[in-house]
């Protein structure tokens, strides 16, 4: 039987877009055709989502556009050919690594493949690091469910993993006194959502706590649970701790083709050989629908949504904010599908400003544009009037893995029996990932029909790579006396020593690039952006990894130095 809402939605689509063919596929809505503008393609997807089907599969093509193929490593070998494992996780972002670590608590052979040569190279490193409280999420959503579950234990997790977690709270500022009337509703909603400690800040108190914000601020609501972490450090920590507990991370390894027989995945072909898993976990971020499709299980679509953020110099901290802060922008935010963006003090003392939100067909295009930077300044000028271009040290783009339902997908396969999806994980995925991982393991038990036994020797803690400069003088002095390399500063802006760089190169997950070092311990992340220290890091890396200077990479497969000097024109 056709649901009436399906009928209505299909009729609406055919009325608005006669060129689009809508069919019902086993409870999902399948959209096909060709359109002139990407925005229209996305719009149809949203209309289809109103039918509340099991998923919108938007296969509408953009006219004259061929999507870029997924970028994969140039390595082609048989390193992992014939490898068998219980669970094969596809994707080494926050979700994939959280799942790997969760599996590593049990006696199960879990393996993670990541197409890049490091973890956290896509959305998991390209975000603002916010641990959200979930005020803007409906209680009906999976987003809300997982976020609230994860928030409770996040601080403990960060401590176990030796990752900085700063709970400076979240401040939602209102610019209209009339909004005061809505506060009883907001407080009641917050209570229902399980958000703890919410309180009102009157103007005077608000300005005392946040003296640099725009003068239009009338009052604010403060959410003390709001926090920040370093997102890439969180992912690296999860991966390292998983490896220490027996999990495996295979880098430079991309899933290219699935062999599916009678609705079961038999094998996964990669650029490094064929892997034979019992169950596949799809944590492939913006490529999750493509991976699902390869496995014969695509019942949803990812439509990439770009966001650009800027990072301000630590020196600007005194004229910045003291909590994750945003001005309430009314309902316009919901339409724009961002969390509203804001000004966020990072765990390292910088400030992140952002993000923008725009739909784009590309899944890995991280170019930034002048318009996006200008838009950030326009958007936040009222929030922080002192915001200045001269304080910006860098900016970056990230791509959200949004579905048309705008909610997480955490479930077993629809048609394929031995796949589990953790898909559509956009914000607040960084927050929600540990709770999602717990459920994935439970679903794994259902799918495999096997109750997992906890690993006795599981060690939840990981040796922190907390920076030396944050230690007391006595502790730091003691460390330097035990290893003089800790007393030789290489990165002057962030005050990172040679010893810390060497430690970072010797950790359980191998570091292949200077950018990998930068993400882990901040060498090169300061105001000179590596202008002084990259040269030194290249030498340290070459020496440690017994490589030539001309073999050291900055990111991906890109070398820094191309050749020896010629010795002049002759």
């Amino acid at each position, binding site marked *: 039987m056709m649901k009436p809402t399906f009928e209505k939605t299909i009729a609406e689509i055919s009325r608005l877009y006669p060129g689009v063919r809508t069919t019902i596929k086993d409870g999902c809505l399948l959209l096909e055709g060709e359109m002139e503008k990407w925005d229209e393609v996305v719009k149809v997807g949203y209309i289809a989502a109103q039918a509340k089907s099991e998923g919108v599969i938007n296969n509408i093509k953009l006219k004259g556009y061929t999507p870029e193929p997924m970028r994969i490593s140039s390595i082609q070998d048989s390193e992992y050919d014939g490898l068998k494992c219980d669970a094969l996780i596809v994707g080494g972002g926050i979700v994939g690594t959280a799942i790997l670590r969760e599996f590593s608590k049990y006696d199960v052979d879990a393996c993670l493949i990541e197409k890049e040569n490091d973890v956290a190279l896509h959305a998991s490193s390209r975000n603002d690091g916010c641990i959200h409280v979930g005020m803007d999420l409906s209680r009906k959503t999976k987003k809300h469910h997982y976020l609230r579950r994860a928030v409770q234990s996040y601080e403990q997790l960060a401590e176990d993993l030796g990752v900085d977690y700063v709970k400076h709270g979240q401040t939602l500022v209102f610019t209209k006194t009339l909004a005061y009337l809505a506060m009883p509703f907001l407080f009641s909603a917050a209570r229902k959502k399980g958000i703890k400690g919410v309180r009102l800040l009157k103007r005077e108190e608000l300005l005392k706590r946040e003296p640099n914000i725009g003068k239009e601020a009338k009052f604010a609501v403060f959410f003390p649970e709001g926090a920040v972490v370093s997102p890439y450090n969180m992912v690296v920590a999860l991966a390292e701790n998983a490896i220490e507990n027996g999990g495996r991370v295979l880098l430079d390894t991309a899933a290219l083709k699935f062999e599916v027989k009678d609705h079961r995945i038999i094998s996964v072909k990669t650029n490094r050989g064929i892997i034979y898993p019992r169950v596949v976990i799809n944590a492939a971020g913006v490529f999750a629908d493509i991976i699902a499709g390869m496995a014969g299980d695509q019942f949803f679509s990812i439509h990439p949504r770009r966001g650009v953020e800027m990072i301000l110099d630590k020196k600007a901290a005194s004229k910045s904010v003291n909590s994750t802060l945003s001005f309430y922008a009314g309902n316009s935010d919901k339409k724009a599908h961002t969390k509203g963006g804001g000004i966020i003090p990072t765990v390292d003392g910088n400030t992140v400003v952002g993000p923008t939100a725009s739909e784009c067909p590309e899944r890995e295009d991280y170019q930034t544009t002048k318009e996006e930077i200008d838009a950030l300044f326009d958007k936040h000028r009222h929030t922080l009037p002192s915001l200045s271009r001269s304080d910006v040290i860098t900016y970056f783009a990230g791509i959200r893995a949004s579905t048309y339902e705008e909610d997480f997908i955490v479930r077993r396969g629809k048609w394929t029996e031995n796949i589990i999806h953790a898909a559509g994980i956009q914000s607040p995925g960084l927050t929600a990932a540990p709770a999602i991982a717990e459920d994935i393991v439970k679903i794994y038990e259902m799918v495999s029909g096997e109750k997992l036994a906890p690993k006795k020797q599981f060690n939840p803690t990981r040796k922190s790579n907390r920076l030396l400069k944050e230690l007391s003088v006595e502790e730091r002095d003691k460390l330097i006396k035990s290893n003089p390399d800790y007393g030789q500063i290489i990165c002057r802006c962030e005050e990172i020593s040679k010893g810390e760089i060497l430690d970072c190169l010797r950790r359980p997950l191998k570091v292949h690039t200077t950018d990998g070092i930068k993400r882990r311990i901040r060498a090169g992340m300061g105001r000179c952006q590596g202008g002084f220290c990259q040269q030194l890091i290249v030498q340290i890396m070459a020496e440690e990894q017994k490589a030539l200077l001309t073999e050291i990479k900055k990111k991906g497969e890109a070398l820094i130095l191309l050749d020896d*000097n010629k010795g002049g024109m002759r």
Partner: protein
Amino acid sequence: MKRYDVIVIGAGPAGLAAALKADENGASVLLIEREAKLGGILKQCIHDGFGLTRFNEKLSGPEYANREIEKIKKTGVSINTLTFVTKIEKNDDSFTLTLVTRDGIASVIGTKLILATGCRERTSRQIFIGGTNPSGLMTAGAAQYYINILGKMPTKRCVILGSGDIGLIMARRITLEGGQVLGVYEVKPTPSGLTRNIVQCLDDFNIPLHLSHTVTKVFGCDRLEAVEIAEVDEHMQAIEESKHIVACDALIISVGLIPENEIAEQLKIAINPKTKGPYVDQTLMTFAPHVYSCGNSLHVSDLADYVSESGELAGTYAAKSIQKERDLQEIEIDSHLMYFVPSHLDFKSPTRQVIAYFRSAGEYENATLYIEHDGKTLFKKRYLHLRPPEMERIVFSLSPDLAPATVRVYLEVKP
């Protein structure tokens, strides 16, 4: 805890000269350098042209630095290399510095401080270039280190953005090493570097200089693959129709230097927005008593010789000054001047000779510089040609009976 009359932070040309002069004037001196070797950025400047005023000779950067290093070795100056200043605290009559060294954390006390911390390069992000952030996008100084210190080529075919001196020098250097420089692009309608560098580094090697052009976008995911070039209009806005793509493997950025004053900021020393260095009087003392600033951390000079000179001034005055009170009066400048150093005059100082440096705000011919005090002209000099990239040096004196008042400096420009 060891105690010194003068502690110099930074052992580039400014710090070396400051330490030498402070020592010569009888002070006990500690020279602190974070790198393993003395000489600062001169170590990687293997081109010649250094020392024409200081040594009356054309030297390479390392040769120039070595002359100073040889001299300092014969003095009683204590030298700490591989030493990083992590913290500075002000005491009643001195400063305590916390140092990170390979031997551990150490503290030293200095009565006077000389900041000779040099400058850093503006990055591509600070001029908001769009596109990706790949390998091959680097500052000219980084390229210079790779080629001259490591002997490796970071590029085979590049575009240079900015006609600053390091960019010009690197255009020649890359060409000499067999690399191809497709062009130097300058957003301004006039070159930023010294005329001699335009001639010797670009013209002599047939490297095109494109004025009023800039790079608007960088392409390439991992390695840089191309850049988008655009001509700019009189408001420095890219002209859409002029945009075109140039394939290359690197974009080398030479778009200006920023004085490094993080240590000064720790001491809450006021910074002059025009120079990005501290406000100083004629003895190069900052607003913080007993803290001096010199070299490129005071203001970016075009010649190492000037950097050394300001180091000498700071070293001399830091060693000699016993003065307690100051009467600081601002030097006001008109809009034809980009900046004027010193920014202030201390009328209580026994130092009555003023060595000043300035840059014009635009290109002027037949301009006259006036220094006025209380309506009377103290100093006047005519210039046939003034260009912002070429720093000018003047010397004038304040008579001992001059009443404290604002001094006005202006350029009379013939229309």
